[in-house]
């Protein structure tokens, strides 16, 4: 009985992933008809590179959403960790220490989210909304005082960070490889490790998980802290790619990331979702973004579309559950 229930649950997820993958294929087919450039290898690699930072953060966001939470501060953590690292380097701190410093800050901010959510018991979206503002404010403060008193971008000239964001292995952009490795690692992690399974348990029924001996708070602290670290990696990749730690880096990324996760089949009520599904969701977002460029559509239409896609994805989830 128990086994049967599990496998039917898995089927639902699989079916959902297949559906999302079908949607991706449909968009790809339409785009390849609309634009002769779309299927060219360099454009495909651009799309993959373009989705890599969003994809990497989405891994963390998937785990958070499976526990029934949400993290709206990911874009700000991306921005502030990259700016912190750049500022440390600018002050003459060794790059290795600066990078550790960036990851330390990312983990600290994620951990802070987790502590407030678990100990003060405030709704995750409120806590992380606050952190969104704190992170962005800190980004501007860290960018201040280089030229007079005003905030400005800091050029990122470190070669290692440049490679993280803009390197290649053969014809394949290095960010794509980083994303692929992390997707495989975390997919195995949530499937085969105790903590990984506990993430689902917490999201399905928090009280039941607690009663069966799961340390719910530790699980939540783990997912928020890990997401902080993943945001740092994404921030460094982003700064390396653009050769600048920008004050507005990552601004609005939380929407792309949440969109990727909900398109990928995770339920905002928790307990359901997969990293593979999320990555397909991130690919859909990236293809859409690329389509806007190739079809020469106004840039702000993209912003509207992201909002529409999020609402559509959540709505279909609700309707599917209701039926």
């Amino acid at each position, binding site marked *: 009985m128990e086994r049967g229930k599990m496998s039917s649950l898995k089927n639902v997820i699989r079916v959902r992933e297949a559906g999302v993958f079908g949607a991706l294929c449909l968009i790809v087919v339409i785009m390849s008809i609309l634009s002769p*450039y779309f299927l060219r290898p360099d454009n495909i690699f651009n799309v993959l590179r*373009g989705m890599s930072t969003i994809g990497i953060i989405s891994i963390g966001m998937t785990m958070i959403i499976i526990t029934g939470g949400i993290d709206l501060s990911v874009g700000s953590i991306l921005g502030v960790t990259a700016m912190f690292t750049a500022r440390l380097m600018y002050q003459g701190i060794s790059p290795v220490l600066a990078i550790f410093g960036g990851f330390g800050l990312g983990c600290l901010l994620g951990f802070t989210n987790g502590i407030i959510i678990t100990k003060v018991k405030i709704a995750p979206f409120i806590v992380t909304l606050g952190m969104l503002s704190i992170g962005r404010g800190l980004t501007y403060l860290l960018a201040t005082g280089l*030229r007079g*008193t005003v905030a400005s*971008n800091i050029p990122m000239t470190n070669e290692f960070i440049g490679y993280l964001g*803009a390197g290649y292995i053969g014809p394949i952009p290095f960010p794509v490889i980083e994303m692929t490795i992390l997707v495989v690692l975390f997919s195995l992690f949530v499937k085969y490790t105790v903590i990984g399974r506990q993430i689902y348990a917490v999201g399905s029924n928090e009280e039941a998980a607690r009663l069966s001996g799961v340390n719910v708070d530790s699980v939540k602290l783990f997912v928020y802290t890990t997401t902080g670290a993943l945001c740092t990696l994404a921030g460094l990749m982003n700064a390396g790619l653009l*050769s600048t730690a920008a004050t507005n880096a990552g601004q609005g990324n939380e929407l792309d990331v949440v969109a990727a996760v909900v398109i990928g089949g995770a339920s905002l009520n928790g307990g359901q979702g997969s990293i593979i599904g999320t990555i397909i969701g991130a690919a859909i977002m990236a293809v859409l973004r*690329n389509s806007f460029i190739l079809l020469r559509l106004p*840039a*702000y239409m993209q912003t509207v579309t992201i909002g529409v896609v999020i609402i559509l994805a959540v709505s279909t989830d609700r309707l599917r559950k209701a039926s």
Partner: protein
Amino acid sequence: MVTIREIARIAKVSRGTVDKVLNNRPGVSDEVRERVSGIAKALGYKPNIIGKALANQKKAFLIGVIVPPDSNPYFEDIKRGVNAAYDEVKYCGIQIDYQVMRSLEPKEQLGIIEHLVDKGITALALNPINDDMIRDAIDEMTGGGIPVVTFTSDILRSRRLCFVGLDVVKSGRVAGELMGKLLQGKGKVAVVFGSRSILSHNQRIEGFTAVMRQDYPGIEILEMVENLDRDDVSFEVTLSLLERYPDLDGLCLMSAGIGGAGRAIKLAENGYGIKVVSFDFIPETVELVKEGIIDFTIGQNPFMQGYQPIKILSDYLLFDRVPQVDFYRISNEIKIKQNIDELYV
């Protein structure tokens, strides 16, 4: 040395009339004005600046300056310009009261204006918020004998003395001319700009395309794409442009997002051969000019946008000199690899 008394004697008018003519003040008939200025010219009359300055030392002149919030490096350079002008005129008894706004709210600006008037300013230079209450305040001050100069952006139909700023369409024309010369009149170019919803970006495009159409018909503008002033978007759209047009010859980067565009140019196979013209002097732009990726970058000369209003108001206060133009155009600075280091001294 010719004096006003001598001119008055020869022209057979009063000294007051001569003074009015020399300082372009009303109240003199055209016939007298012409005769007096003719005599002054013939005698080689020059105003005695030192004398005036000595006379003015007894009076105190206070120029109020209002700038928007400190979020933009641009206004640091404006402040440098204000300070440089102040250094030149402070010996003539001119003081500056520099006020930085905390928001872009018209109400806040009005509050600062009232505060400055209470302090007894004799002139005001401001970057006005475009709002009726600010226009009314400007008109009221002008009526009350406090001259006002607007800078960087103007406020329409107000009675301000003059506006000091950039002719944005002209900046776009400068970019067009540079591109036309770089490509020797033939080739294919693309434009990356911030947003269609920003007026100054549209004006730059207007100037750029006008020059291309009129003077460089051999240059084809393939595409104009928005980057929302963001580096990540800038990277993607620029790279896509370079890949879709392997035969692209020139790229004009009209606004921010320069770091991302620069990386795209470096990554693209055809990137290094492309001629690039950009705007402004943010740190990423300076790096790319030094690396030889960007050929020319066009600055808005914020230093002069801060310097000129103070000079104009000082001249008005000290010497009654009325500005000759309603719109005092600041010319663009053009920087290349060889002089980009001269910034921020």
